[in-house]
């Protein structure tokens, strides 16, 4: 056998709901009308919340903020697919999933206002705080999945990250370990085409990101990330497989960052308005609305109710956020270790009651 093939691999792309709001009947799972309304409402809420955050930032009521506009289907889809007992490890552009997981909106505002209390995930919510150093949370998710496997907990772990994160060594080392130990973890890459100013094609030469899973010996799949049906379904299947002991899956969700990278960024410096415009037509909310119209699930009254409810929730979160008492400076020392070390006790004391001169 002088020259022979020793490996053949294929990468699939899934799209259930296309840009025109048409669903492929051969792939469409049975979603109830109620479920579909929930998809819609959750996406609208995420968008309104996001817009509010941008607004607060402009008014100086919030610090730097990273918008999720355009990525609502990925995030709501993944959020819906997760079960409460699953664990989730977020990147920094993930408020959609955060809110599906039950994180109070106030926490999100606090965090982006530079207040660590925002990272204090409520008890019972199995989520990690946001990872700012890109991709570094991927091994954590792998470790938690490993923990679940060792403890025989029938849960799955989800980790979300961007296209940029796939270039980091942490991605590689985490993916590789997940493969070797066949861990119950789903890697969900939100390929929003940009890592700040670096376009996807400059991030890696691989045709798809999904094919990166081939390097680790487990399945990779590409999904239309603006298709809520495809997102819910693919993520759900992957999580179920993980819970069943079927090992890891890598999902590349093809989507687009409609906004600047963060409020500190100006995307017009590096990308064309045409490109952005092109993606507007692929909007995840719009296409679901068209589908709902076609299938008579959408009504103006429903839209109005969704808008009203969502806005109320958003405004409540703002109120709660702005009603937070200021942080106690002494807290700086309180969570470094379970028991503060002598030097921390001394520094805290000096801060709170400086030695009299």
């Amino acid at each position, binding site marked *: 056998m002088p020259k022979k093939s020793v490996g053949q691999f294929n990468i699939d792309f899934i799209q259930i709901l296309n840009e025109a709001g048409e669903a492929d009947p051969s792939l469409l799972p049975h979603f109830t009308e109620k479920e579909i309304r929930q998809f819609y409402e959750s996406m609208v809420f995420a968008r309104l919340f996001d817009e509010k955050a941008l607004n607060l930032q402009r008014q100086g009521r919030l610090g*730097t903020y990273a918008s999720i506009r355009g990525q609502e289907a990925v995030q709501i889809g993944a959020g819906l697919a997760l079960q409460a007992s699953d664990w989730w490890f977020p990147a920094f552009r993930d408020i959609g999933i955060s809110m599906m997981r039950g994180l109070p909106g106030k926490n999100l505002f606090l965090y*982006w206002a530079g207040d660590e209390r925002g990272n204090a995930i409520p008890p019972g919510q199995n989520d990690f705080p946001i990872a700012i*150093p890109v991709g570094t949370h991927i091994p954590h998710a792998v470790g938690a999945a490993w923990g679940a496997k060792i403890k025989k907990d029938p849960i799955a772990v989800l980790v979300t990250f961007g296209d940029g994160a796939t270039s980091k*060594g942490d991605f590689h080392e985490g993916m590789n370990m997940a493969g070797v130990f066949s861990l119950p973890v789903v890697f969900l890459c939100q390929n929003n085409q940009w890592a700040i100013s670096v376009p996807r094609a400059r*991030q890696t030469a691989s045709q798809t990101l999904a094919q990166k899973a081939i390097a680790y010996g487990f399945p990779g799949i590409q999904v239309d990330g603006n298709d809520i049906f495809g997102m819910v379904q693919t993520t759900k299947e992957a999580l179920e497989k993980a819970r069943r002991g079927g090992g890891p899956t890598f999902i590349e969700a093809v989507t687009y960052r409609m906004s600047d990278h963060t409020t500190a960024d100006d995307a017009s410096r*590096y990308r064309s308005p045409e490109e952005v415009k092109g993606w507007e037509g692929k909007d995840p909310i719009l296409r679901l609305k068209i589908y709902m119209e076609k299938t008579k699930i959408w009504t103006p009254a429903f839209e109005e109710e969704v808008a009203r409810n969502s806005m109320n929730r958003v405004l409540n979160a703002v109120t709660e956020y702005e009603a937070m008492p200021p942080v106690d*400076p002494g807290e700086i020392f309180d969570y*470094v270790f379970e028991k503060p070390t002598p030097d921390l006790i001394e*520094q805290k004391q000096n*801060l709170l009651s400086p030695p009299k001169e």
Partner: protein
Amino acid sequence: MEKLTLVQAINLALSEEMERDPGVVVMGEDVGKDGGVFRATLGLLDRFGGERVIDTPLSETGIIGAAIGMAAYGLTPVAEIQFLGFIYSAMEQIISHAARLRTRTKGRYHCPLVIRTPYGGGIHAPEHHSESSEAYFYHTPGIKVVVPSTPSDARGLLKSAIRDPDPVLFLEPARIYRSIKEEMKGDDPIPLGEARIARSGKDITLIAWGAMVHTALKSAEAVKKEGIEAEVIDLRTLYPMDTGKILSSIEKTGRGIVVHEAPLKGGLGGEIAAIIQEKALLYLEAPVLRVAGFNTPIPLPKMEQVYLPSPEKITAAIYQTLRY
């Protein structure tokens, strides 16, 4: 000449060095089209082209690792790490390779690499964007560490860093990127390893670098009203350290305070105090004090000013020292 901010002065030094030496290559995340998230590399892509101003993937290990290879191959890479807090994944490349290439090869190869990175607090940035971990690099044999505190120094020191045949970590105090404007004082490189007396005084020596120089100067102004003349030393280069200037100031004042943003424990304040007591114990009228960050991670913006040295904290330490 027009007045420049610190970040503009860096931009100027980069373009001057790229002009001077075609081997100088700028690389990093968003340094090209975007001109860097702080605009330090603005215009360089247009001027010098995509082969010399390289937008890289999100890959700190890869950036530093590849820069080492480029440097050994004969280029002079100036690699930007977007924030000092993101350099840690490249520590192995820095400690085990960049800093050792000359030693390991008995001089057959060397590594003329500059790593530029914004550092320090006070910019209301998200987590991990306000680190001051210069002590890690000071402790690392084989790499120089430079921190400018004025636009002119930024330009002159960066030129020297780029011309230096060995690796240099060039820390840019993000907090004062735009807060000071200054006319450039000549366009010569400023030699590495020479501290600057930012303010003369006879009563006490304040030793600082980066943004803390300005904090120390404010404190010096404050105590002046009480007739206390504080000398402020801007170290400019942390390694090699200009211990000569530190010691002669201490011999004059008999009192010293080191100010830094990094956590107190294991920070450079300890090193400097140790050197002073070793070489000038008999001149000391009081212990050398350290005004530094707490032994905690630097808090998020809401609390960072509590954490960081302030003129008030320095002033309190001055009185404590004088009353000893």
